[in-house]
């Protein structure tokens, strides 16, 4: 009687220990998974690196596209090394605008909307200029940073 009771207790203790370990496992698995940074880098929504200034300057038509969060952006180099960045979405019906080398304009294929390189709507149905973003050229890294600052 005494013996079997001791046996039962030690069995119970083993069970308790095993249970605690298993429980720690179920808790620590998600915790460690959570702590491991995802492969996709954190989306810094307030600022992105569009490209380097050298890349932009070397590009044939002085423009580069980039992704800003979930939007497509376009950065252009105007006369006198002036930088401009726009959201590459047509202000008419939200199609994506693209560069047209033959006319040197930003062009929306959906309804032939045209913007000049300063983002102004110059022909077709677009009611407004392209949404403009702020640019900043960091001399040290040569990176062009684009942000959605409030003042443009």
């Amino acid at each position, binding site marked *: 009687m005494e013996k079997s009771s001791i046996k039962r*207790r030690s069995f*119970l203790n083993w*069970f*308790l220990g095993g*249970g*605690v370990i*298993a*429980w720690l496992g*179920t*808790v620590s698995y*998600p915790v460690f998974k959570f702590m491991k940074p995802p492969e996709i880098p954190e989306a810094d929504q307030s600022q992105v690196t569009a490209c380097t200034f050298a890349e932009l300057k070397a590009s044939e038509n002085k423009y580069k596209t980039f992704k800003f969060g*979930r939007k497509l952006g376009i950065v252009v180099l105007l006369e006198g090394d002036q930088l401009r960045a726009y959201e590459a979405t047509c202000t*008419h019906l939200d*199609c*994506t605008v693209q560069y047209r080398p033959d006319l040197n304009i930003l062009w929306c*294929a959906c*309804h*032939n*909307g045209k913007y000049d390189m300063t983002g102004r709507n110059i022909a*077709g*149905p*677009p*009611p407004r200029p392209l949404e403009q973003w702020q640019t900043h050229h960091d001399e040290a890294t040569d990176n062009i940073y684009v942000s959605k600052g409030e003042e443009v």
Partner: protein
Amino acid sequence: MRYLYKLLAVLVMSAVFSLPSLAVENNCQSCHADWEDEGGPASMWDGDIHKEVGLTCADCHGGDPTLEDMDEVRQGRSYVGVPKTVAIPNFCGRCHSDPSYMKKFNPSVATDQLDKYWTSIHGQLNEQGDAQAATCVSCHSVHSIQPAKIPSSSVYPMNLPGTCAECHANPIYMKPYDIPTDQYDKFVGSVHGRQLLEEEDLGAPACNDCHGNHGAAPPGLDNISAVCGTCHARQAMLFAESPHKEAYAKAKLPQCETCHSNHDIIQPIDEMVGVGEKAFCARCHDADSDSKGFETAAAISDLLDSLVRIERMAEATIDEAEIKGMSVDNERFALKDVRSALVESRTLIHSFDLEKVKPEAEKGMQLAAATHLRGLDIIEDYYFRRKGLAISTIIITLLAIVIWIKIKRFDNS
């Protein structure tokens, strides 16, 4: 009391503002206002652009406004009075075709309206002495003329279809010309009409965007694609490079119109392409006499169908994952790219070239398939979460039971 002040203010203001005209002494206005009922020239004149730029009745109708006796006015050398209907274009053209005069009011205003008018069907009928044919005032109104950019103007884009329809939708009025009168009704239901009139998108075309305004005429067979191409540039370019351009010209088929019709253009459907019952291709390309065209049509149609099917499948998977409470923001974003590949494929149909449609459609299909798989993964994750929960719940419950037994044990001892 407050009301009185307001009234007083209005009186004073109107006195101040009417001072210059009092100085000129416009007897036309004062007499006509006395004689006329509501709706006469004197009452309609307010808000007219000509009044706003400082012109008076006499600037168009002639006569000496300082005279008080009507008969004296009529006998004056400069008096023009009411022009005959057919004479109206030249009546307005006295000023509007004179660049140096018009420059005084608006340096950038166009002065080619009259020249264009003579090229229009309206102008040609007018030349033949047809008093029914539209003149300037038919569209611009007589004494309350406003520029097209003002929303209350009869020629403001959203008002223009109704203005044209006043004559063109009237079967009795249009009877002598033997042309249809259903254009307005068709336009209202068309994709353009809805975009303009319901969505109030001023970028959408009104009558004049295809037909011209002062030079209004139906586009010719060969230049329809030029008309549509002002907005639908990609499609027009693709069409111009396609074998259809020459073939249509030979067969005297109107370019875009052959498939899309004109005033009642609806949102195109994929069934329009291919060799099925609703398909337009099969009307000319049949399997026996023209197997190449027939096959191309069938192949393009197959591509589109596959893309649409796989897109729907991906969408359904993502929907299911979302209904299960999973977050699918990134996948929704990918579906947008699938959608734009589909739109691009549909645009490329206008090349009527399988080799051009294929890469774009395949790109869309690959993306849609990947998104579909992502969706399946997410749904799997949904079940994985529940399995994980079940395991941890079992473990915790077992632990709780062990502790319960321990409590009982201590309570007994």
